């Protein structure tokens, strides 16, 4: 469906970009994105994508708004305390960006709801905005199993990480498990080491930009890890490399490997801060 005059005016600054144009804007409007975690990262990513005219967002988070969220989760305010983040975000995004369809799932992603949340035939991109290692592994396994592109961002203290994987485009880059094996020790979370709002916001902005780039078809970003140091203001880039023995993507990524791995790593209830 061609853009309406109203849409053309609304998105004119995006359409001006040769990389986007009218066709790219239409691609945005047709895109369906699932966001896991509507906290420091997810609330902003969701807002950017809705504002850019992405067609449909599914927001997944079982948490409610807490007062300690407010310094960095700018979509929420005091009147939202105690309400489900996914629902509050849905209401506010629908009000501000009526062209974007929004679904809210007020549960943490788990084995029971994963299938209904992630119907690969209908999803263009999966965004991991969660706040814990176990969820990140679960999301990675689902992305491999269902062959959906994944953009994973994280932030804590003054460190941020951003990576994208897509088994269709760059199987040699492996997956999250190749980079950070599930038995790895994790020291940093926002709850234990703290974080500043703009630090999470930086990573969220980069994640949203990467999502739009991937939807536009820029595949050059896939298979790379970007690390941001918020003390030194430096970005580092490294190519991801598949572990040939990876139990998630190392064999036939379309096969039982990811499925059985999902079963081997029972998902635990976690919070998306």
């Amino acid at each position, binding site marked *: 469906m061609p853009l309406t005059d109203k849409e053309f005016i609304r998105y004119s600054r995006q359409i001006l970009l040769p990389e986007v144009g009218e066709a790219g804007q239409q691609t945005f409007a047709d895109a369906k994105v699932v966001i896991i975690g509507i906290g420091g990262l997810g609330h902003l990513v969701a807002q950017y994508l809705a504002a850019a005219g992405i067609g449909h967002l599914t927001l997944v988070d079982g948490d409610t708004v807490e007062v300690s969220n407010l310094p960095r989760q700018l979509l929420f305010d005091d009147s939202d305390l105690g309400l489900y983040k996914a629902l509050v975000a849905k209401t506010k995004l629908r009000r501000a960006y009526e062209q974007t369809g929004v679904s809210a799932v007020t549960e943490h992603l788990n084995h029971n709801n994963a299938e209904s949340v992630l119907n690969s035939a209908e999803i263009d991109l999966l965004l991991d905005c969660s706040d814990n290692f176990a969820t990140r592994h679960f999301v990675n396994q689902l992305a491999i199993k269902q062959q959906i592109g994944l953009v994973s961002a994280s932030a804590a203290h003054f460190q941020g990480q951003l990576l994208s994987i897509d088994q269709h485009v760059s199987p040699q880059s492996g997956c999250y498990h190749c*980079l950070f094996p599930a038995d790895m020790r994790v020291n*940093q979370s926002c709850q234990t080491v703290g974080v500043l709002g703009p630090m999470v916001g930086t990573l969220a902005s980069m994640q949203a930009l990467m999502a739009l780039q991937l939807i536009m078809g820029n595949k050059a970003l896939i298979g790379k890890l970007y690390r941001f140091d918020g003390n030194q203001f430096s970005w580092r880039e*490294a190519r991801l490399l598949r572990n040939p023995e990876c139990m998630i993507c190392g064999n036939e990524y379309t096969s039982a490997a990811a499925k059985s791995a999902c079963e081997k790593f029972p998902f635990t209830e976690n919070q998306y801060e």
Partner: protein
Amino acid sequence: MNKATDSIDISINDETKQVAINSTVQSVIEIYAELAGADVNAIAVAINSEIVPRVRWQSECCLAGDKFEIFSVVAGG
């Protein structure tokens, strides 16, 4: 022992370090972890801007001039 021929210079997180020639990635990481008070099991590594999966740490030797970036996973959000 001639230090000039038995050791090589590499960099770890932008600092030049001397390590024994033919050192494995594993041994470099273990030395770094001990000095930094870090847990080897909490570390990932990129050499010359390419991630080296953990299974290759034992079999891969480092070369003069290698740039190691040693970092830990960030999972928050």
